[in-house]
């Protein structure tokens, strides 16, 4: 069979179970696609030998019957996940050479379910960025192309999105602190879900902003997102914020029936300067859900406007604290020292050499807003605004709204380098529709819904009630079906 790398997780799983293909064949197809896709710079640490070893083990397990859904399926893992014995450096120079002696809980769950890791995927440094341009490995490139420009796959999970869109793997892991799964999914015509805060264990995932970070799958279809999310979720005593709740069979909840559901359209998301195409797509999405039997209501989330500034206080504050551990003592890079340099010079030089400019900026902003005299004015005020943002959502859910429909991003993918001279705040605006979801700890999913006039994918976002990913996936599944997005990037790489 040709083009095994182009299969969805669901189709590959079914073929494996019927004995019509093997994990080794799937893995070899992906490895060969990866070899031919250097121009995308998506896979930054390849693990072909390990992949084939795991594929052979998966085939043996499949032959015995009763293998889990993910068994034998080749996937990519974002570089933010610690993977035992395999380079894991959060796309940062400061973790150069770091090979963890342990496996993150989420990647361990996938490994134990028999999924085959093909390698590690490019990303923004420490997941700080929206274009994959802050990576020490260089830019990941979007497989979608409409002119001579190389486009961003989005960020921070840019390598994951590019790899899934280009069929280098069947699916990939991502992480999302302010939109880092959903924005790259929207830019590449793929599906990405950030589950409720606490669904996926954070243990072993390099921490950026601990109260916002969540892992999730990046896939070709909503069904695949349901399959892979289930394999990633579950209680973990090693993460004190991991929820001790049963994990439902998400795939079984994809009934395609949303009759009687109430979908909210938040008026505050109709921001000034929203491109006409995005507004029209959003309206079409609402029509599709209405046609499927849902009730569409206008809602208000009055504090939406303050989500971005609150996020850009809270996330850097937590990052400045989390990144204090990179001091050149226990792992990663240490600067070479001049005669007479003491331990302070070692810290300062190591961190100056090891962190890129965006990470340095955020660490310093975080340090500033937490410093004596500013803590109340910035950090505590932002945490109060966060309470209000969450309350906005609680109010509409209490009024009977089941899910909220919004655009995923304020634009389609832009050219790499185009934002190089922009104010840092301009880049932050990419997260305007996604960041509220992290602040409120809710599940959110990006579904490809159409192409813009240039031929680039656009996504719509659905936001669900806490812990109701199954219901959210079902609504997303209906939207996906109605939108009928089947376009794939033409191969140029």
């Amino acid at each position, binding site marked *: 069979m040709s083009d095994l790398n182009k299969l969805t997780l669901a189709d590959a799983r079914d073929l494996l179970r019927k004995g019509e293909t093997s994990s080794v064949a799937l893995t070899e197809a992906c490895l060969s696609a990866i070899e031919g896709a250097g121009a995308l710079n998506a896979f930054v640490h390849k693990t072909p030998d390990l992949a084939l070893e795991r594929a052979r083990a998966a085939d043996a397990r499949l032959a015995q019957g009763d293998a889990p859904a993910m068994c034998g399926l080749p996937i990519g893992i974002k570089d933010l996940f610690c993977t035992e014995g395999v380079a894991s450096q959060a796309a940062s120079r400061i973790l150069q050479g*770091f090979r963890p*002696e342990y496996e993150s809980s989420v990647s361990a769950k996938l490994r134990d379910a028999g999924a085959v890791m093909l390698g590690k995927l490019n990303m923004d440094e420490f997941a700080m960025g929206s274009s994959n341009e802050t990576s020490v490995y260089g830019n990941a490139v979007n497989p979608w192309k409409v002119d001579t420009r190389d486009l961003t796959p989005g960020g921070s999970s840019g390598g994951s999105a590019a790899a899934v869109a280009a069929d280098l793997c069947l699916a990939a892991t991502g992480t999302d602190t302010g939109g880092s799964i959903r924005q790259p999914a929207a830019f590449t015509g793929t599906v990405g879900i950030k589950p*409720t*805060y*606490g669904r996926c264990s954070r243990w072993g995932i390099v921490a950026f902003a601990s*109260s916002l970070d969540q892992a999730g799958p990046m896939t070709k279809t909503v069904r695949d997102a349901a399959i892979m999310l289930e394999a990633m979720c579950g209680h973990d*005593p090693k993460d*004190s*914020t991991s*929820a*001790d709740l049963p994990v439902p069979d998400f795939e079984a909840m994809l009934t395609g029936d949303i009759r009687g559901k109430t979908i909210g359209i938040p008026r505050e998301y109709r921001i000034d300067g929203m491109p006409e195409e995005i507004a029209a797509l959003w309206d079409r999405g609402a029509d599709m859900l209405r046609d499927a039997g849902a009730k569409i209501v206008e809602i208000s989330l009055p*504090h939406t406007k*303050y989500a*971005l*500034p*609150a996020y*850009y*206080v809270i996330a850097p504050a937590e990052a*400045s604290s989390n990144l*204090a551990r990179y001091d050149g*003592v*226990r*792992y*990663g*890079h*240490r600067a070479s*020292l001049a005669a007479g*340099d*003491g*331990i*302070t*010079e*070692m*810290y*300062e030089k190591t*961190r*100056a050499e090891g962190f890129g400019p965006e990470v340095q*900026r955020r*660490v*310093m*902003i975080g*340090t*500033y807003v937490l410093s004596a005299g500013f803590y109340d004015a*910035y950090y*505590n*005020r*932002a*945490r*109060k*605004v*966060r*309470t*209000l943002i*969450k309350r906005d959502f609680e109010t509409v859910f209490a009024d009977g709204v089941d899910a909220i429909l919004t655009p995923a991003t304020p634009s389609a993918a832009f050219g790499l380098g185009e934002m190089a001279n922009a*104010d*840092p*705040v301009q880049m*932050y605006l990419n997260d305007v529709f996604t960041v509220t979801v992290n*602040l409120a*700890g809710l599940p959110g999913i990006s579904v490809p819904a159409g192409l813009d006039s240039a031929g680039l994918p656009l996504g719509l976002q659905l936001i669900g009630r806490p812990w109701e990913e199954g219901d959210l996936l079902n609504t997303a599944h209906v939207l996906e079906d109605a939108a009928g997005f089947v376009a794939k990037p033409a191969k140029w790489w």
Partner: protein
Amino acid sequence: MSEIDHETARKVAKLSRIAVPESDLPGLANDLSRILTFMEELNEVDVEGVAPMTSVTPMRLTRRKDGVTDGDYQDKILSNAPDAREGFFAVPKVVE
């Protein structure tokens, strides 16, 4: 607009333990000022009587018995150290 001057930028860099060359301080001060100005939109919000969020999902942190549950792999812990000697992390001399 919030103004971060060179002196404040230098102080923040020091607190962050990041060496910033003197020539980069004006650019850094400018970037930090713009970001802080953006954050000042938060001053428009009435937060009177609102509690700062401490946990996004209502949960009690779980407790366990205070005991040793893990450990005994010094070699693994030291395996990634830039400089490890005789079972310890090694750093430049701290005490004269």
